[in-house]
């Protein structure tokens, strides 16, 4: 385990609101990331994905505060450092961040070349401009980006180009860990593919040591990352390899997430999407027991009061639930069989209605306009 680049132990961070209330948006999160590996974080909006990204960088500015836990990057603990030190010494060199909105990340008033000079001067104040230019040009050539774009303003680039330039600039110092926070969710499918290919090429070329990829698009995560973690209400509820998580989820919440995947493949049209009812809990007053209790289909009476720690199971997997893996799997098989039976019944009913000409019932509902 010598090549672990990032190790996070029981990290807890909180937001302090105007009324002095604590909101624990990242609650006892542990993860470890080896060199050359990538990890994906999935979850619905508001579950703490982006807060986790900011916390991992040590980027604590009010209202975000550090509470407890360790962040160890390549043997160096950064958890107690001041934000200004982090910004000067850690960001960019050890850990880099790609924001979601690349459109707003570039300075609109200067050319890309000037922007890169600014970035480099922040880290190496004595570096000469021509040195920086040579470095930027080499990097752009390496990543198959047009070198001419260095002399353009941000507004002259298309959305996909802007995102790629932002990625190139944020990784110019060869960071050990790259955090990509929804890098492609604002792009259309073709530009998304180009951006993802660039990230993969950078991993292969060793420009970035490892990657944390945050998104809510599960098909994308499945194709990009080695491992997937699912977050819910500030906690990690399940972790496993990408294939395990997509085809054999254990936690009821991850199962709900995997049920909402939409891909243009044969047969997916007939599968009914099942949405998870309800909304996530308010983290100002987190529930006493399991945080998923209110929305869980398989809840037990004890779930409401007993908080569950995250448990290791076979392989490298972890999950957080009262029920054992076998119990959960049994429940899922029963549910699948039930759904199949219902669908078969529906088809028979539809056919009967059609044969007898009774399916005009819906016409009567329609009011005149």
């Amino acid at each position: 385990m010598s090549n672990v680049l990032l190790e996070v132990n029981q990290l807890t961070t909180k937001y302090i609101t105007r009324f002095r209330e604590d909101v624990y948006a990242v609650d006892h999160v542990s993860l470890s990331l080896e060199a050359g590996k990538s990890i994906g974080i999935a979850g619905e909006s508001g579950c703490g994905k982006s807060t986790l990204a900011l916390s991992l960088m040590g980027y604590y500015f009010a209202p975000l505060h550090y509470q407890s836990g360790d962040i160890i990057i390549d043997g160096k603990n950064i958890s107690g450092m001041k934000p200004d030190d982090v910004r000067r010494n850690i960001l960019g060199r050890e850990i880099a961040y790609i924001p979601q909105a690349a459109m707003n990340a570039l300075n609109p008033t200067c050319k890309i070349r000037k922007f890169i000079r600014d970035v480099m001067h922040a880290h190496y104040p004595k570096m000469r401009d021509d040195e920086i230019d040579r470095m930027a040009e080499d990097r752009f050539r390496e990543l198959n980006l047009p070198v001419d774009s260095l002399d353009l303003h941000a507004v002259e680039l298309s959305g996909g180009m802007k995102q790629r330039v932002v990625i190139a600039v944020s990784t110019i110092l060869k960071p050990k860990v790259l955090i990509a926070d929804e890098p492609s969710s604002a792009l259309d499918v073709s530009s998304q593919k180009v951006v993802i290919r660039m990230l993969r090429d950078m991993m292969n070329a060793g420009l970035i040591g490892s990657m944390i990829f945050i998104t809510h698009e599960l098909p994308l995560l499945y194709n990009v990352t080695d491992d997937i973690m699912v977050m819910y209400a500030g906690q990690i509820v399940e972790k496993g390899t990408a294939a395990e998580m997509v085809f054999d989820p254990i936690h009821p919440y991850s199962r709900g997430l995997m049920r909402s995947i939409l891909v243009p493949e044969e047969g997916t049209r007939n599968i009914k999407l099942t949405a998870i009812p309800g909304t996530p809990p308010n983290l100002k007053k987190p529930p006493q027991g399991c945080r998923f209790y209110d929305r869980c289909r398989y809840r037990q009476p004890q779930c409401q009061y007993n908080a569950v720690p995250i448990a290791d199971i076979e392989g490298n997997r972890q999950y957080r639930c009262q029920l054992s893996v076998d119990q959960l799997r049994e429940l899922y098989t029963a549910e699948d069989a039930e759904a199949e039976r219902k669908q078969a019944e529906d088809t028979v009913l539809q056919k009967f209605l059609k044969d007898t000409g009774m399916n005009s019932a819906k016409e009567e509902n329609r009011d005149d306009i």
Partner: protein
Amino acid sequence: MTYEELQNAPLCLSGRQLTKVFVNGKVSKTAVDHVDFDFHQGEVISIVGESGSGKTTLSKMLLGLLNVTSGTIYFKGEERKIRTMAQRRAYWNGIQAIFQDPFSSYNIFHKIDAVLDDCINMRYGRHIDKQKREDLKTEACSFVNLKYAELTNKYPFELSGGQMQRLMIARIFLLKPQILLADEPTSMIDACSRATILDMLLKLRDETGMTVIFITHDIGLAYYISDTVYIMEHGKFVESGSADEVILHPKAAYTKRLISDVPKIHEEWNLDDVFTGEE
């Protein structure tokens, strides 16, 4: 209903040689280029294309928010007339829209009740007694799995994105137009609430028999929801047909490329095969 049955249903909206040219001084740009389409009653139609392919321009023309450069739109078999404001109002009784950004679809200074009240005024007239009004609002909210009692007297910022978008659907339920135009209604909403919204749109179609025109760039979504798919490239429809035919057996090169660009689960996603003709 099957695809064939839908094709024989009465026509709801159709266009012939529809064109929109944006002119700025000496520069002109054709956003929508001589497109023909036939939308039938009760059909769910998806218009799929990349950014800049003219999807939104087409939808604005269908809604009557943009003037048509040339070509004609037929609404229920007759030529659409939207010269005067009265004609426009009458047309908007038949066609309504849900937009991409639910956060900017509301007037932030008004309570949510006002949104629903406006719809009731538009459809049933101003003079409707209070009890009936409450009943209608409760019914509409329960259709989209929201509790009216919890929503009343709230402002839009107190709701989540998914709730706002669902309330937009409640609005459509009150208005019951013949055509609903949904312009990327789920792109700003995360994957979990997306399924709810899609199921509600399908339920709306099944209960009221309205035509749903779904504009999206997500092919997986289009495949799930629609009966008919139109693929748009540079202002032209390059391919159209039933969802199974277009998505599973694409003919046009552009459609093939679009589908190969989508990450999939059961097939391998080939990253080396990318389209590099970026402008």
